[in-house]
């Protein structure tokens, strides 16, 4: 429930102008709101616009050119992998991470909610622990583990093991919010009384009712993977952020840097925005 009543309309008298103390207060509040939105909105938008502008910069300062954007697909510098391959790897990483995260977390959380309630706090603690243990710290301890992993594969895709852990806090919170909205016990008892196995209960009964939470979790994990730099860099792998960093060390003003950054951002933002409308549509239908 909002702290203050919804403020979109102020009722008008027959004379057409709102009067009265409550109306005055609402107007003052609205002024405050719009000042805040404009000032902070500018603060958020300007760097993004700068990114966009620089990505459209031509050979001479002040000119416009879309070269940087076209370069995304073909950019290659000596000593570093092509930009496109870094993008591909990161995309694949994101998909694998999201998939593993879902398979790992969703059944576990549902199962705990259903049958092992006493582990609830423990699971929550473990999932939120990565927030406390910064990536930079994890890297220090990951050396021996990744040495072993590298016996099997040198691909950057192997990063997914640790990326799932990084995504845990955000995914957990999103899934927990989704779970709290449904009566898991009743649904599962109903399904079991009709003869469903636990597998069916989890996959066919509960999970579909958590759609919003699952989508949220996927999106946050996705954003985490796309934004990750520290671990990939220090373990000497390549992903999108590392690639961008390397390019910037070589050619600091490469337009392609800004184009890629901007694209990644807008893409995620659009996804989140669509998601927030998808959530509402479900509610409206009821």
């Amino acid at each position: 429930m909002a702290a203050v009543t919804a403020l979109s309309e102020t009722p008008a008298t027959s004379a057409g102008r709102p009067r009265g103390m409550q109306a005055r207060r609402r107007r003052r509040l609205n002024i405050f709101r719009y000042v805040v939105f404009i000032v902070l909105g500018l603060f958020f938008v300007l760097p993004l616009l700068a990114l966009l502008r620089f990505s459209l910069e031509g050979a001479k300062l002040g000119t416009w050119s879309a070269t940087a954007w076209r370069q995304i697909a073909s950019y290659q510098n000596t000593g570093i992998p092509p930009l496109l391959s870094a993008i591909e790897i990161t995309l694949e990483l994101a998909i694998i991470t999201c998939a593993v995260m879902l398979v790992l977390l969703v059944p576990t959380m549902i199962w705990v909610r259903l049958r092992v309630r006493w582990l609830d706090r423990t699971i929550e603690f473990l999932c939120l622990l990565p927030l406390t243990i910064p990536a930079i710290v994890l890297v220090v301890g990951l050396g021996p583990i990744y040495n072993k992993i590298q016996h099997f594969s040198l691909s950057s895709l192997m990063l997914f093991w640790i990326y799932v852990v990084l995504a845990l806090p955000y995914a957990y919170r999103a899934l927990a919010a989704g779970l709290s909205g449904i009566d898991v016990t009743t649904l599962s008892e109903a399904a079991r009384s009709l003869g469903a196995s636990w597998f069916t209960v989890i996959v066919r009964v509960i999970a579909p009712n958590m759609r919003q939470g699952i989508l949220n979790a996927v999106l946050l994990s996705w954003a985490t993977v796309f934004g990750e730099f520290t671990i990939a860099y220090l373990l000497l792998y390549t992903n999108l952020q590392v690639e961008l960093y390397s390019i910037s060390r070589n050619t600091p003003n490469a337009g392609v840097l800004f184009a890629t950054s901007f694209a990644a951002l807008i893409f995620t933002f659009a996804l989140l925005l669509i998601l927030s409308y998808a959530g509402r549509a479900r509610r409206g239908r009821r």
Partner: protein
Amino acid sequence: MTSSPVTRARDRAARAAVEVRLEGLSRHYGPVVALDRLDLTLEPGQLVALLGPSGCGKTTTLRLLAGLEDADAGRVVIGGRDLTHVPANKRDMGMVFQAYSLFPHMTVRQNVAFGLRLRRVGAAERDQRALEMLDLVGLAEQASRYPHQLSGGQQQRVALARALAIEPQVLLLDEPLSALDAKVRAQLRDEIRRIQLEVGITTLFVTHDQEEALAIADRVGVMREGHLEQLAPPTEVYSRPATSFVAEFVGLTNRLAGEVRAGQLTVRGCTLPLVERDTPDGQVVALVRPEAVTMVSHDAPESGPLVGTVIAVTFLGATSRVTVDLGDATIMAQLPTADASALPAGSRVALTIRPDPVLVSASSSPAVSMAGDET
């Protein structure tokens, strides 16, 4: 030793129990009219209950009186002073909300003393008055607890104590019992009335539960779509409803086809006097209370317009409600349980209607309405 707040409150109320007048109040939200030129007067010391279906404007009336919303037109006059443009925090009224209004981070005592704190009453005196208020509502031992540790009924009693602690001129109650269990509701309802009478404060009580309204009010105002349909003591509202809406909203009503001829109403073979003598001739729907329907006989009666088969008997305590199928209509009768126990489902019974004055409704389709069951 200073006097207790109850005595003080009573003295003050006796000195200056105020009259509340709402004149021509209007309020709309966009195209929706919530209140349409409402006129309502509360005599000093009276408890007036506003009753009606949701959307009728009763809560809006209360909130306008409290100053939590602005009126589009009209005046609010308390004790002779025009308070229409006075902000809510200066109106000197105590309000009890439906739920959740206690401050969760304060103890019960701190909650009750909050209004006094705002009025810069010293800490010691504040605490003392708060405790006395809590005594009034019977919760003095809970003074150091937090709201989440209390039951719903206890929380509402604390809310009442908090509202009264500031010795307001008017007490406002916005469906205070709606969120509570049935048993608690009945208890608390009587307690609110007892305290209100003891303190003698002019009170406005909003509810959608007619039983509540009829039980405790000095006068009941039945509202519909922004209008006041009737303002009268409970007995009058119940037995002499002013409009068909009131008749159907308050209590149960049978809707029976009948005919009016020359000022006389004939319903299923019974001649009944009309409330409105000058009702034009024609087919009408008569509104008959179940208590007006009585049993004539139940042993193999002959057929007749008021002879039928018992469908169901609902035990209500001293009386029972008997639903009878008359073939082309269904009728409800409220009979003493002793009589009703002789009527198992399926048996035949003959009824008659007592000649109390009856209202007729403008609308058609005479199905028996369970209008009074609306919550």
